[in-house]
């Protein structure tokens, strides 16, 4: 995938939308059954072939470079139908960005060029979990030229799926640093997939390290900064996933409300229902606008880009919770069943909002950083 112009960006977005509606949507219920059913490995293989896992990489690694709008529009289009694959792409993009931010460009280049399948390109990580907020229970020590990791890393997204994991650890029990380790055969034991609220096909695993060889990333003492910088821009990618979920929820609710009759007319003709649908559509539209505007500011290097990314995320997260709650409600009893996509969107929105960190704290940070300049 070498395209960088607007036409090719539009093609990427369309490829995402087509893939989601033709490949993901028909098997959504089955894919979501993981870990109690098989993982959608065929879909992952096809997504790899289409270059979706490269999208966040620099242009010389067959990605779309520094700009965020290609990644965001890809994520939004996929999340409309199935947020699990979008969450995998997002999680991987987060880890790839951590490597870049740590200055490990050559290492990443090698990974991207050498990847023969999705496992090869995917990197497991704790995504938005801020290591300086909750210190890790993983410790690194020097052993000759190598680093050895000992301890535990809970909830490593893609940890049991990817060839490599990128985790924070404490060096000499106090200083934070990021490390990259190969899952096999490096002394890492991987739990069963953690059964959680949403995005079941984007699994997380608890990892235990016993003298696992790892590579030190970046420079000593910089882990907090690296994380903050990546999280800052990745909030926008997360917002685009939530915006996609909302779009899917609004569409499904509208389609259903036109067909379902109660009281002798389609339920969309009752103004109480219109009020619900109208509210959903309005929140979704504003979220989409927030993502688009934040992408524009980010891609043009505007000085307000940091606050725009976080504000877009905060708005999308709060809206997605409300929209998907109403999205089930609009369908009544069937909205609560696995047969439609609404219950999954409700779980996915709530799940993603929670795993991206404590939302109210992000609001405090927004005030401190964006408004007070602290």
């Amino acid at each position, binding site marked *: 995938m070498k395209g960088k112009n607007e036409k090719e960006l539009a093609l990427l977005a369309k490829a995402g939308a087509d893939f989601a509606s033709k490949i993901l949507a028909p098997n959504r219920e089955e894919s979501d059954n993981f870990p*109690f059913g098989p993982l959608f490995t065929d879909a992952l293989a096809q997504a790899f072939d289409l270059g979706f896992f490269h999208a966040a990489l620099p242009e010389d690694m067959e990605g779309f470079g520094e700009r965020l709008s290609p990644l965001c529009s890809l994520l939004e289009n996929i999340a409309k139908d199935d947020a699990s694959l979008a969450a995998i792409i997002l999680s991987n993009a987060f880890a790839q960005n951590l490597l870049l931010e740590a200055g490990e460009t050559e290492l990443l280049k090698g990974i991207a060029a050498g990847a023969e399948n999705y496992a090869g390109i995917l990197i497991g990580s704790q995504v938005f979990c801020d290591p300086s907020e909750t210190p890790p229970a993983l410790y690194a020590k020097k052993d000759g030229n190598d680093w050895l990791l000992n301890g535990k890393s809970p909830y490593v997204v893609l940890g049991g799926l990817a060839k490599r994991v990128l985790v924070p650890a404490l060096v000499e029990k106090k200083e934070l640093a990021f490390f990259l380790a190969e899952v096999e055969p490096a002394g890492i034991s991987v739990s069963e997939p*953690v*059964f959680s609220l949403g995005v079941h096909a984007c699994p997380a695993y608890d990892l235990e390290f016993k003298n696992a060889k790892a590579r030190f990333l970046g420079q000593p003492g910089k882990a907090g900064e690296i994380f903050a910088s990546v999280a800052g821009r990745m909030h926008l990618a997360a917002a685009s996933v939530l915006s996609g979920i909302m779009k899917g929820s609004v569409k499904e609710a509208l389609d259903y409300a036109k067909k379902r009759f109660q009281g002798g007319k389609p339920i*969309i003709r009752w103004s109480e229902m219109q009020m619900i649908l109208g509210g959903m559509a309005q929140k979704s539209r504003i979220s989409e606008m927030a993502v688009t505007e934040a992408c524009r500011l980010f891609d043009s290097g505007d000085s307000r880009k940091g606050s725009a990314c976080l504000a877009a995320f905060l708005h999308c997260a709060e809206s997605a919770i409300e929209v998907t*709650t109403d999205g089930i409600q609009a369908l*009544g009893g069937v909205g609560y069943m696995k047969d439609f996509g609404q219950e999954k969107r409700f779980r996915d929105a709530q799940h993603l*909002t929670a795993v991206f960190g404590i*939302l109210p704290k992000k609001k405090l940070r927004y005030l401190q950083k964006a408004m007070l300049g602290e």
Partner: protein
Amino acid sequence: MAASLHAGPKLARGMIGQTREVIALCRKFCDEVVRPRALEIDKKLHEDPDYLDWDFVKKANDWGFYTMWLPKAMGGGGYNFSSLSYAMEEIGSVCLAMANLIGVHYLGFGTLTASGNMRIMQKLCRETVLGRKNGDPCLITLAITEPGAGTDVEEVDLVDKAKLGCFAKRVEGGYIVNGSKVFISNGHLSKWHMLITYTDLKKPSESAVMMSIPNGLKGFSFGRHEKKMGQRACPASELLFDDCFVPDEYVALDNRVKQKFSRSQKEMTQQMIDYVVSPSRAAVGAFGTGAARGAYEAAFKFASETVVDGELYVNHEWVQSWLAEMHKNVTLSRLVYTETNYANSLWGLYKDLHFEPMFSIMRRTPAFLSQKLFGSFLGKPGATEFMRERMFNDQSVCHQCRTSGLASAAKFTGTDYGVKNCQMALMLMGGAGVRQDRGAEKILRDAKLLQIYEGTNQLNRLNLFKCLIACGCKDACVFEEKEGGAA
């Protein structure tokens, strides 16, 4: 004036003690039965969606939960019906699915009670009590929802326009039923099903029939077992009727009875619905209170044990404010369902059982004597006539509306706050809240259903308007919005 002010002075002595007893029993039951298995069963049902949790039902049966709130004269425990809501809050705060596995049985029994048919009530009570003794649980469901009609069947002003498919044809000695019912809670786990069907699909509001359908009746079978987001331990079943002959002995109420009363058939159908949903919506409000409480407790525990940014989470000022808000949501939800139960006690389904001297006499009379004294009378046709006279003629429309309107308030207040608290808890807990083994995410999945069943919260808002507000405007009409609306 608040129902509690009316009810306070009339409240039977002994009711408070009895309610305390119920709460203590539920807490013990939660510690010994519900909490140790709630997450495991939820997970098991993800592995095997058709699994039926007979173990839990048997345990609840052994502990007496299926007979506690049945009338003492019919062999039940005779506990005051309001205490069922407190029980549902207690158990619901730990696992809503398991609370539902108990609560729905009383929805079924409450429906039968609303028919006033003492003969069938006595029969089903006897079987439930026997089932407790034999360790073979006998549960009852309510089946009213159809594939094409959900909201419609809860409201007589809508049902005549509904797309109904379940039809009862009068034949000699009974009815022949064809069609299906969907989303019936506890269906696959129950022995009896209170079926509401219609003899005229063009005028269902005037032709509703209530029947008690036993498992094994020819032409009756179970269909699919729905795959739900939450409350997985409590199955939602499809019930299928294929030329199913239901003999008169199983017919609890039909037009032949309704013709004897002064209200119109349609008014009586609404009265019957209100008798059923006024206590059951209070109970769903209590489920919601339980969800709100479970979520609050999970968030408080997390905040009390976790250090964030070098400070105990519970000591961040905004966290204190959030916890206070969540606590308030629990308290308000409980107040509304309690108020509704006062209304039910004064004017609703169990008005005769709750007030002195009836309550005290029943409470003090030993079970065997109570059955001997009243039991033989209850089986006689005169008992049913007396009961129906009390129910259908002695309740004023005003009292019916106050009870039903309050019940709707209890339902949507408790369940909206339930979902709200779950969402606040997950936001407060961040990533820690999404793991199934931590419990918080399950409460959210379970709680969302509460906004849907027993009438969606939208329907309940409109019912509150109809019952408590519309009388203030002579031109107000409900469910008659002009075709097209604002669309």
